[in-house]
């Protein structure tokens, strides 16, 4: 599979969904689409035909406002049919602007209120240790989400939790979609976010920084989440993914108006041309 092409097509799908269903947070969805493409296209061990397999890898999109990106990705990788995606954000539909629990196969958690995904992911990762299962848990957070105290409660717990199975959750990977913008301004200015990588490192995480739009780098670093090495200090993994809000469409990139703005029909067409997606 050509992941670059897949990511471009998913971007076009998400932009179309935003326009057709008047759904905001487009910039946030485009920001994390390469992360999702790398995960579902290459990294995650999930069979869409067995979405409840207890040994599956888990992914939680903690930045739930970017849910259209996850919906489009799950749909693309065969978790649910066209008509479900087609009903997105309509009255009575399965898929809301931000997901409800179990709304479609493959949706591990309802998110949308920030700061919930990492604690839940931590619980799933701890359960794997208790039950001696080999699955991994990936949680994607936004940089603005790192304003939430609960993120740091979980960040402090993940390297410290210990039981008969050992110490530290090396089966947990947090990915921060670090696009430097949150709802109303620059995330590095609103609160003292920098040095974000140093913060995760100081909290005890095995932390790397990547270009969050470089699919090869993403696949390599996400795949490096390998639990089970015998160690008294097995660390959870943090990937600080430097991204651009609105990535892929030059007139949306790093422009925070696209946190809430809905694209017009001609902007959708223009975006598709710029993405090189014909349909």
């Amino acid at each position: 599979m050509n992941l670059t092409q897949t990511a471009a097509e998913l971007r076009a799908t998400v932009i179309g969904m935003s326009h057709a269903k008047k759904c905001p947070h487009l910039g946030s969805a485009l920001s994390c689409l390469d992360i999702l493409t790398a995960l579902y296209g290459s990294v995650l061990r999930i069979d869409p035909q067995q979405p409840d397999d207890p040994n599956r890898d888990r992914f939680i999109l903690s930045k739930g406002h970017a849910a259209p990106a996850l919906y489009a990705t799950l749909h693309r990788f065969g978790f649910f049919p066209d008509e479900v995606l087609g009903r997105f954000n309509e009255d009575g539909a399965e898929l809301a602007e931000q997901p409800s629990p179990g709304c479609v196969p493959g949706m591990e958690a309802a998110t949308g209120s920030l700061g919930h995904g990492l604690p839940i992911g931590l619980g799933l990762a701890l359960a794997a240790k208790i039950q001696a299962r080999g699955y991994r848990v990936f949680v994607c957070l936004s940089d603005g989400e790192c304003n939430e105290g609960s993120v740091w409660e979980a960040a402090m717990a993940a390297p410290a939790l210990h039981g008969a199975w050992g110490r530290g959750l090396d089966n947990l990977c947090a990915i921060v979609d670090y696009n430097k913008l949150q709802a109303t301004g620059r995330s590095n200015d609103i609160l003292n976010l920098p040095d974000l990588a140093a913060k995760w490192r100081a909290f005890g995480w095995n932390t790397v920084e990547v270009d969050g739009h470089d699919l090869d780098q993403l696949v390599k670093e996400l795949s490096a989440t390998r639990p089970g090495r015998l160690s008294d200090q097995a660390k959870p993994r943090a990937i600080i993914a430097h991204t651009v809000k609105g990535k892929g469409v030059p007139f949306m990139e790093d422009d925070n108006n696209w946190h809430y703005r809905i694209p017009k029909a001609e902007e959708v067409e223009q975006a598709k041309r710029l993405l090189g997606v014909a349909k």
Partner: protein
Amino acid sequence: MRNAFRDAVYAWAKRDDRVVLLSADIGNRMFDAFKADFPDRFYNVGVAEQNMIGLAAGLAMAGLRPVCYTIANFTTYRVIEQIRIDLCYHHQPVIVAGVGGGLSYATLGSTHHSCEDLGMLRALPGMDVLTPGDPPEVTACVALAQQKSDGPTYIRLGKKGEPPIHQDVPTLSPATWITMSGSDPSADVELFSCGTVLPVAIEAAKQLREQGTAVTLRSCVSVKPLDASAMRQAFQSARLVVTLEEHSTLTGFGSAVAEWKTDRERSEPLAAHLLRLGTPDAFLHRTGSQAYARQITGLTPDAITQRVTETLAATPATPRR
């Protein structure tokens, strides 16, 4: 009640290897036996209650049966959104236990009182709210919560050292209260005691009977769901139903009973009047023991007896069925 809870959770964990106990840095030495016997199923998650609830949700999603334990105010107010979303919205069978419910930790000041917790939690869809009144009822409530598989349960505990009132552990069914004494269909007063005030209610019932007032006393261990059968019987046969709780009269157990009655009294013969006794809509700014706190909030046997007697005197007799 605290030790009864510890023992009940231990016994459950011994039978069921899905049970995982989470403590938010509380219960020093209390869980030593649990830790020793189940070292991969006890986690001190630190003074980080939000993470405790989210973590519990994740454990439950993977098929485990987490129990979250800390002081009632921290395990409710502090984490109400985590309980709402992570547990209730996701239908996760997690037991949230709060020790020091109501005015149990009166001396610690209002930061450690929980007189609004029942109202907050019973408002959440899918949440069950249990309020044991003595140690054997704690054991019974833990057993009842184990049976629920599609959502969370809040168990509001007192503190340690309350004497047992029941000789044996009562068997509880969902939405069922316990008739403590005087199940007389012609009783003037039905006294509904909720949770930690049960010993006070017993004494008040005794005083009322000494005055010649027939009283039926129930321990209302389930605030959500309520016992509709018991309420129907009480409101149809008594002159006065009295709710008693260490909780604000706003939103708590008495409020739940009032809601139930209001919704039905036009279509059912629910003639009895309702008197709701609880704590005021205020913080307590003077320190004191639980006995002191009960005294200044009117939750003593003498004060209850007086309020009930006055109310009965002012309550016109209602036609009985």
